[in-house]
């Protein structure tokens, strides 16, 4: 049988990978994927806890996370397309006009 901590460590690892991707990736689409990766890591811990504490609400939360992820993907990708139309690039290092 698998201890809960294994699942948690796995989800933590996925989350950390997401953060790292956000930090080191330049391509904005990949950065978005990193966000999705983080969300997946969180989902895993949700389901693990649900199974551990025998509370089904954990799984329900996964659905909410998925909905949010879907919305975020739709809007985010639309933004990406809009940005690409105007700036002709996907590199976040070149899209840095929003500053003082």
């Amino acid at each position, binding site marked *: 049988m698998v201890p809960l901590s294994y699942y948690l460590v796995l989800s933590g690892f996925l989350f950390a990978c997401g*953060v790292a991707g*956000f*930090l*080191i990736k*330049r391509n*904005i689409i990949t*950065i978005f994927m990193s966000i999705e990766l983080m969300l997946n890591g969180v989902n895993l811990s949700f389901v693990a806890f649900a199974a551990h504490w025998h509370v089904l609400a954990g799984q329900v939360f996964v659905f909410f996370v998925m909905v949010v992820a879907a919305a975020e993907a739709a809007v985010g990708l639309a933004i990406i397309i809009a940005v690409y139309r105007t700036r002709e690039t996907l590199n*976040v*290092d070149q*899209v*840095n*006009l*929003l*500053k*003082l």
Partner: protein
Amino acid sequence: MTSSLNLWLIPVLPLAGAAINGFLGKKSSRTAVTTVGLVFSGIAFAWALSVALRFSSVDLPYQEFVAHWIRSGAFSADFALYLDQLSLVMLLVVTGVGFLIHIYSVGYMWDDPGYYRFFAYLNLFMFFMLTLILANNYLVMFIGWEGVGLASYLLIGFWFTKDSAASAGKKAFIVNRIGDFGFLIALFLIIQHFGSLNFTQVIAQVQPISPETGSAGLLTAIGILLMMGACGKSAQIPLYVWLPDAMEGPTPVSALIHAATMVTAGVYMVARSHVIFERAPMALMVVAVIGTLTAFFAATIGIAQTDIKKVLAYSTVSQLGYMFMACGVGAFSAGIFHLMTHAFFKGLLFLAAGSVIHAVGGEQDMRKMGGLRSYVPWTFLTMGIATLAIAGIPPFAGFWSKDEILWQAYSSDHGSWVFWLIGIITAFITSFYMFRLLFMTFFGDYHGAQVDPHGQAHAAHGHDDHGHGEPHESPIVMLVPLMILAFLSVVGGLVGIGNRFEHFLAPVFGSGAVSEVAGETASRVTEYVFMGISVAVALLGLMLAHVLYVSKPYLPQRIADSLNGFYTAVLHKYYVDEFYAKLFVKPLIQGSTTILWQGVDRKIIDDTVNNAADGARHVSDEVRHMQSGNLRSYAGWIAAGSALVIAYMIWMGVR
């Protein structure tokens, strides 16, 4: 307690009138305003009368609970009303005289653009005054106290476009603040030591204390502080200076507020807390001294004044001094008695003076009047009655009350012959300057022909349709109140015969020295002697005035020249105002300008704020470079920050 008297109606009705007139009056017609103002105050008066009729059937003191107000711990102060003989007298005086003056104002203020405003203020004043009278605890009383202050401020400054009026209003308000300060401290002391402001409870707690016990000092302090408040409201030395200036207000206001009702609030308050004073001889002495001095002092000033209303104002001050003298010698009922009669004749005097001013088109200087009795007979008649009354000529009202006071000043165990002597001299002066006023105004021949009909007072009063040329009698609506008041000034004193008034008030003040002394035949003889003396003095004053201002008009000027320094001093009211200005006002202005404004506000507060702002701007100038616009940098900051948070949580043991 028997069936409810619905006392609350009495204050609330004028309030409703004030609200209606204040909010809707601007749009509505004068008749509507008049109806509202008169009807509400009239109903209040009628209700007060009905209460008086049912009075015998009520077991006293009658208390009526209206609403909760403050409930904190053991202390509680409610909106509750309190009725006993004392407050009944005040109630009748205030509503009655107030109603008459309302009627009078209709004629007097008819042409004023601020007509609705005037009635709104007047009704508002009625509301507060009635609250003050009917309060069952010091706090509600204080509300009324401050409220009448507000109303008087509004009404003194009624013609606020006139600088003198506005500043007079301010002066009255500020001077009253000084008195209220003392009053408040007294209230705090009462709360501190008796844990309640309710009259009944305070009395119940004070009763057992005898003057010899240790807490007498406390009572003395409370008494003196209360007296301070009374000095402010009732224009006693040293705080009387606002009352003469208050004459800037419309004459009905002077009559109602600054002669009949509000200024007597101090007396009422002292009488209301007589229990405290009776147990603090020191405080009583203070009251008596202040009252006596004020009476004499103001009377002397009254001699030299030429403005008709100023004369009346100073006479008011001195009459109030009489009342305080009475309270000071422990004859509270006498004080209240004089309060009532004074309300009648002084109100009448003011109204008549207003009628005179109205007749001569806004002129207030007596030297420009004279010989008016043929023009305004009714006014002359009523004013003559009032003058006789105040001078103390029997059988007019003033005689009874004033004589009572003088007798008490001599005979009561708190009194002494000094008070009596000064009182009798003051009586002489009083009758002198009152008849001086009468003669200067109505006798001799008319000097007012060359009066510029468009004088400043003229503009203020706005009597455009008349006022120039021939002096003329006032409309009937103004004369009726005069006559009623005249009647009252004639018969008002009779209730005092045989100490009936004292006996009526006895349940409130306890049957003190008053009645027994009055009961003894031996002292009754002496009382009659004193009575004779005071009458003689009054007549003496009359004759002197007649000599100086009717038969030999050239004499006064000569006298003035002969003792000219003193005369000018008197003319300038002993320079008290200037003295106060030097002593208090200027240092205050200087201090607040240099220390508070330049020092505290500029240097400390402003600089603190400015420096804080500058610091913030500099810091943010540095920090804003964090916002590089690069997504990954932001992510970096977030990651670092969250790492710190996680570390902190783990360190704190949140697991």
